[in-house]
């Protein structure tokens, strides 16, 4: 075990040298000027930490050796243009947008020709990085994570484009703002970037949607900033190719009285790692965080979640569900930290997993760190098989066994998807459809 970890770490170190060469070979001409100094700063930070190694506790169950090697290879061999036929097919399969705002990035670059922003309400400002002037760009970057961890630093270092979404104070946006990051299957090391600012008492619904084909490589970063009393409904849907490697970081800062409803779904990727950090930094800030992943074959999905309760009367609810079959592996690590002075904190975390084969594996670790007395916290995790009594009940009614199993797995997953329905019925229906398409693979 220790030796295997050491070998993986050696591979990572070798890849790091190649990535350094790629950065040294010249920055991307398409990147805006205002990004340049941040890119250099981030790259310096990345070089000092390097890719996360297996020996670090946060990466105990998930090796980034494959990610590091693919990064090195792809950064050296960048595609010159997008494969538009492939992209068109990917976009065709998406749900019809409910309000008309759809912003599309292909291989990390904004594609105005594929995007429609005409439905944007007054008070919604959508700024692709590649179109921002220096002042705007610097303002966006000021509020963005640059080098908080190695992967964020890597994203910044190789950043060429991104999208800033700003919703003005008091503005309510009912229609979803659908941001699509598509990978066309070419060897592109894609660094998607989304920065979200929701103004005071504003209310918005944003979907960060990753799709792709082939052996993609994605390292996504999302910065979320909710002002006082703001409400953000945020769906992250990772639906990339099952050969792709996808890592993602989201960092959310929640001011007084603000509320985040987050739903994070992983249907795709050979290797997916998703880190979500929510900082409840204002009184009465609230986060409702749902997660769902499904993995079959020898795929690997890792969700890391951290919620910081820093102020009094903050509350959070975390409810993550995983479904693994074949030799797939799921990891859940959820950490709730109640800081000194955060009296009246209410935090409830639950992780439930379905293990559908002997070889599948789940590693789950919900953690609470509490540094104050007046709190109400609970956490729990369960991992189990499908209930034999339920299967028999359905079969006794005439449902064939395979269908009964699919019905039960779908029901388990659907409870997470249903949280999208009130706000976005069309998206919920699409999610159900995509979920049901995975069922034969995970239940066979």
């Amino acid at each position, binding site marked *: 075990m220790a030796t295997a970890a050491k070998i993986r770490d050696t591979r990572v170190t070798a890849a790091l040298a190649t990535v350094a060469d790629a950065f040294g070979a010249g920055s991307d001409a398409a990147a805006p000027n205002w990004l340049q100094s941040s890119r250099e700063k981030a790259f310096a930070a990345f070089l000092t930490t390097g890719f996360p190694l297996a020996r670090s506790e946060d990466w105990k169950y998930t090796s980034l050796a494959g990610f590091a090697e693919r990064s090195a290879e792809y950064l050296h061999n960048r595609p010159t243009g997008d494969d538009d036929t492939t992209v068109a097919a990917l976009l065709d399969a998406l749900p019809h947008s409910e309000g008309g705002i759809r912003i599309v990035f292909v291989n990390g670059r904004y594609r105005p020709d594929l995007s429609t922003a005409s439905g944007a309400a007054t008070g919604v400002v959508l700024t692709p990085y590649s179109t921002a002037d220096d002042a705007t760009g610097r303002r966006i970057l000021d509020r963005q994570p640059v080098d908080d961890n190695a992967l964020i630093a890597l994203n910044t270092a190789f950043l060429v484009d991104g999208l800033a979404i700003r919703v003005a104070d008091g503005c309510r946006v009912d229609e979803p703002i659908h941001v699509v990051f598509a990978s066309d299957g070419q060897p592109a090391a894609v660094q998607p970037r989304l920065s979200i600012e929701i103004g005071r008492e504003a209310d918005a619904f944003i979907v960060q949607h990753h799709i792709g084909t082939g052996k993609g490589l994605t390292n996504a970063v999302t910065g979320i900033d909710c002002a006082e009393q703001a409400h953000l409904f945020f769906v992250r849907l990772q639906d990339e190719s099952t050969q792709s490697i996808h890592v993602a970081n989201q960092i959310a800062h929640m001011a007084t009285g603000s509320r985040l409803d987050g739903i994070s779904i992983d249907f795709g990727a050979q290797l997916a790692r998703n880190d979500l950090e929510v900082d409840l930094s204002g009184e009465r800030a609230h986060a409702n965080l749902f997660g769902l992943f499904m993995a079959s074959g020898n795929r690997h999905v890792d969700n890391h979640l951290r919620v910081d309760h820093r102020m009094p009367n903050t509350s959070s609810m975390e409810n993550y569900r995983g479904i693994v079959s074949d030799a797939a592996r799921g990891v859940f690590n959820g950490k709730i930290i109640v800081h000194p002075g955060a009296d009246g904190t209410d935090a409830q975390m639950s992780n439930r997993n379905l293990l559908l084969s002997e070889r599948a594996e789940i590693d789950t670790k919900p953690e609470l760190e509490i540094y104050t007395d007046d709190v109400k916290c609970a956490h729990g995790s369960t991992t189990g098989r499908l*209930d*034999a*009594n*339920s299967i*028999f*009940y*359905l*079969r*006794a*009614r*005439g*449902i*064939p*066994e395979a*269908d*009964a199993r699919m*019905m*039960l797995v*779908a*029901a*388990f997953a*659907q*409870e997470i998807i249903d949280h999208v329905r009130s706000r976005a019925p069309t998206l919920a229906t699409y999610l159900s459809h995509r979920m049901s398409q995975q069922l034969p693979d995970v239940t066979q």
Partner: protein
Amino acid sequence: MLKIDNLHANAGDTEILKGLSLAIDAGEVHAIMGPNGSGKSTLAHVLAGRDGYEVTSGSVTYQGTDLLPLAPEERAWHGIFLGFQYPIEIPGVNNTYLLKAALNARRKFHGEPEIDAAQFLRIIKDKARMMKMDQSFLNRSVNEGFSGGEKKRNEVFQMAVLEPQLAILDETDSGLDIDALKVVAAGVNALRSKDRAFLLVTHYQRLLDYIEPDHVHVLAGGRIIKSGDKTLAHELEAQGYDWVLREAAGA
């Protein structure tokens, strides 16, 4: 319709059914009574095809074919229905959806097209009314958050929609107050017909005040030790099981 001949069955290493024989004809209602642990529920489960029981000898013939090799769902397609003693809660599986899938699976097996949506809706609304179930139950998850009585009522509702040829009701009366019992009994009585048979597994005679059986059997020690008409149920109610057990031991 159903012929059980010298049936022996184990649960794990324990023999529960020890030579049970029983014949049920279409149009008949049979009640199986007996003390706890006599094998009543095992019989119901073996007939429905539940895993965990091993038939070691004997046979079960249903409509002329060997029932035992069939999977639970195949038995359902052939018209067998099991009303559960403890109906399972299935969060996330909608009652209506389950019934539609169940009906369509059976129709597919018989080479029939899927049921017309409007016709299906009419059926479930009618049957829900018959079972005095609020329409809201139709769109709730199967048995989730239902009271004990609501769960049993839902079992009979499902039976009414699926219209089986042979309905096995496993202690459907247990845990019911008198009003719920009347509704459940009325549901069963409404389905009685010359083509359909019922096997009522019960611990108490009370149910039989509302559903009049053609035959009453006493199951004890894994065998049927006495059979009679409905008056047998009254004798059991008045005198308990001891005299039957003694009589069987003496014989």
